[in-house]
């Protein structure tokens, strides 16, 4: 018997194409509707206005794409997970595709706390001379940025402007190749002490650059020397077997 504890599940999904223009909150609402369309037996919070137990990972800005988004939810009763990816995807807007559904261990750390590194692909473009955003030009800028011991940016926090050094959060930055309008770089960033936004990196690389297509490609949960995929970091063993 499991008492009032449900069956936590983690899913991985994409956000690609036109749907990248909806907000994090809109994605959450789309999932809540998809769960109802598929009549998933979700656990609800207690209290005056019960909400389904769904928790999202790091927010993704409006306009950015992703291959690697995650959310956790809790089922009130066990259901076969195998067909869920396809079923939920069918109830979601085009471009949001659930690619994996895994049973999650009880009390697994929440995604927002657990994820400590993310990888991005960021396209750099310019308003004017396309050569300014060609791979050679971008490579110079990237090398210069990586050689600098600090990278101070201005941020507005609670109405106050502060300066922060974001250099320690940049783990890796490489030039991946040209696009129609510029160059794509690959970046790995730590999420702590604070997340760095792709736009901040674009601005730090050079004022001539504009942010083109941006895509989150990986999220990592790091524990000691281990680098874990959020889908396999905290597995629940044999959900169906224990539920019977």
């Amino acid at each position, binding site marked *: 018997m499991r008492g009032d504890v449900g069956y936590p599940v983690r899913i991985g999904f994409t956000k690609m194409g036109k749907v990248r*223009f909806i*907000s994090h909150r*809109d994605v959450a609402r789309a999932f809540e509707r998809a769960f109802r369309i598929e*009549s998933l037996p979700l656990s609800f919070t207690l209290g005056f206005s019960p909400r389904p137990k769904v928790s999202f990972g790091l927010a993704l800005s409006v*306009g950015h794409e992703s291959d690697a988004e995650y959310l956790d939810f809790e089922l009130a009763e066990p259901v076969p997970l195998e067909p869920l990816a396809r079923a939920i995807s069918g109830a979601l807007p085009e471009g949001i595709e659930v690619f994996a559904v895994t049973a999650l261990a009880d009390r697994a750390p929440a995604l927002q706390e657990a994820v400590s590194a993310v990888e991005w692909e960021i396209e750099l473009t310019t308003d004017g001379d396309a050569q300014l955003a060609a791979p050679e030009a971008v490579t110079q800028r990237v090398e210069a940025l990586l050689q600098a011991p600090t990278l101070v940016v201005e941020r507005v926090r609670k109405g106050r402007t502060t300066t922060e050094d974001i250099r320690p959060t940049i783990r890796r930055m490489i030039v991946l190749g040209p696009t129609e309008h510029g160059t794509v770089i690959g970046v790995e960033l730590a999420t702590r002490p604070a997340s760095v936004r792709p736009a901040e990196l674009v601005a730090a690389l050079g004022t001539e650059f504009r942010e083109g297509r941006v895509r989150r490609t990986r999220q990592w949960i790091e524990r000691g020397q281990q680098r874990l995929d959020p889908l396999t970091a905290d597995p629940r063993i044999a959900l169906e077997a224990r539920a019977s």
Partner: protein
Amino acid sequence: MTSLWPRIEPLLAGVEKPARYIGMERGSQVPHHGPGSVSWLLVYPDTYEIGLPNQGLQILYEILNERDDAAAERAYAPWLDLAAALRTHAVPLFSVDTHRAAADFDIVAFNLSAELVFTNVLECLDLGGIPVRTQQRAVTDPIVVAGGHCTFNPEPMADFVDAFVIGDGEEPVGEMTERVRDWKRAGHPGGREGILRELAAVPGVYVPSMYDVTYDGPALRSVTPRYADVPAVVDKRTVADLADWPYPKEQLVPLIEVVHDRLNVELFRGCTRGCRFCQAGMITRPVRERPADQVRSMVEQGLARTGYDEVALTSLSSADFSGIDALVSDLVTDQIGCGNVGVSLPSLRVDAFTVGIASEIQKVRRTGLTFAPEGGSWRLRQVINKLITEEDLYAAVEGAYSQGWRRVKLYFLVGLPTEMDEDTLGIAELARNVVKIGKQYTKQASATVSVGGFVPKAHTPFQWFGQNGTAELQRKITMLRDDLRKTAAQVKWHDPQATFAEGIASRGDRRIGAVIERVWRAGGTFQEWSEHFHLARWTDAMAAEGLDPDWHVTRHRTENEILPWDHIAAGLHRDFLWQDWQASLAAHGLPDCRWTPCYDCGVCTDYALEHVVASSVPPAGGSQGTGQDLSAGGAVPVLLGPTRVVRSEAEAVASSARPPSAGES
């Protein structure tokens, strides 16, 4: 035709809420364009968030896409930021479904549900590369159509719209599709004039360019058809039985938050409460209820398909639906639907019965409940025929506070006919008493008093009334605000200047078109948004056109003058409306004709229609409209009798023990 998406996409990075322009909603249709089919672009001339939920547009979108010979897509007015970007980059207005250019459609059809969106119609046409004036359009330009409640006075938009659809659009859109289809197939015989003349022959369709208008100084002298086969009067279209039209079947589910973001199921169309200020109630007669079984299945299927957890049962007075209590009860006890579903009933009457229903559907989070007494005194409420007694209101409010609501919202109009300061101050008196009742139940009791300025509308008994000017409306609002200072009643009001502009467009004649164009050219789009509204744009434009605003807005019309919408018929006989106007001035109420003898407004008799109601007895509730205390839900037999019933309140009260026909004057 190619998709404009590759050119639109780069612009979206720099605009607010880019998801307004991507489409992809659940329920969106795949349009099948082809040489033999007629393409419609259905445009709501306001933001996506306001336009998307519009049920009229969604219904026509589905009906048209179900046809083999039509394809329909949607567009909404781009916000200022995107409009500027579209102009800078020479990208035209586009559909959100397949991002097709507006000018590539055969028909561009606008929904006109409020006067202050008129300038946005011109903006959308211009962004679409379509000449704004009908006369400037070539045979290759789309046919510009408009529907919605504002078309009951189409004249202010007559210079810009090729064809107006008056009344329910379900049937005429098909008939128009056929005419345009055949005209295209035959190689556009007669050119643009040819198809417009064809459309003018479709019942319910008004083609303003087929009429000559003459003036006598500031007054309108005549509106005459140019051809013998063009109707002198265009009658509205009415769907006789809502059961034949279970739409929308696949309500659109937007990806971003919009107004009324929930499943909407229409309970009935039309209202015969007879509130004299209410254009919707006058022009949508008679009452046509949807069968309760159909409502149930639409709710059930709609919830399952959309994933919404809230359903609104919509109409002009939802508590009047036959069997509303059983329907609501089944919804909240999960007999219909799929668990944990919220129910909302917009447009509720003011009485204890209503509060009973509200308490059933709002089991938790009883934050606010809204009532609309509209007038501050019983006398004034008889004038406007909103027959809510103080007892009805206080019983409703007491019911609300005693069952856990903490805030009551009260809607009122100011600037109503015969209104005296004591009527206006009566609003404050009601609000104070409401708060007093609330304080007996909770210390936090508060009331919000929402005040709008009254704009007289076409085809209502108040169409002859001279609207209050801005100074007078402001004086009344200030007086009310001062009187309620330091109370738990908070006053909110609509800007009297916007009310004035609405008045210009509401009852204006064809000359107002030039004013609308000037306002638009001066940058006056999104006029419903207070930050973009400036009355000076409207008054400057009136002055430039040599038109007197007071003639069009604040002047009382005379009995025999020609009104700009006299050639448009909602079925209401002009002498009925005039008589009701006179009854109003004498503070005589008129009961609801669903449950009392017909007083021959003209709609049912002229159009061979009948009320479609499942119950011949009025619902349980207050005295409203029936002249009887129906709080116990007592039956009022429907009697066949003399056709005119105009009773004073004294008679109504005296007749409360008798069948209503006994109290006729």
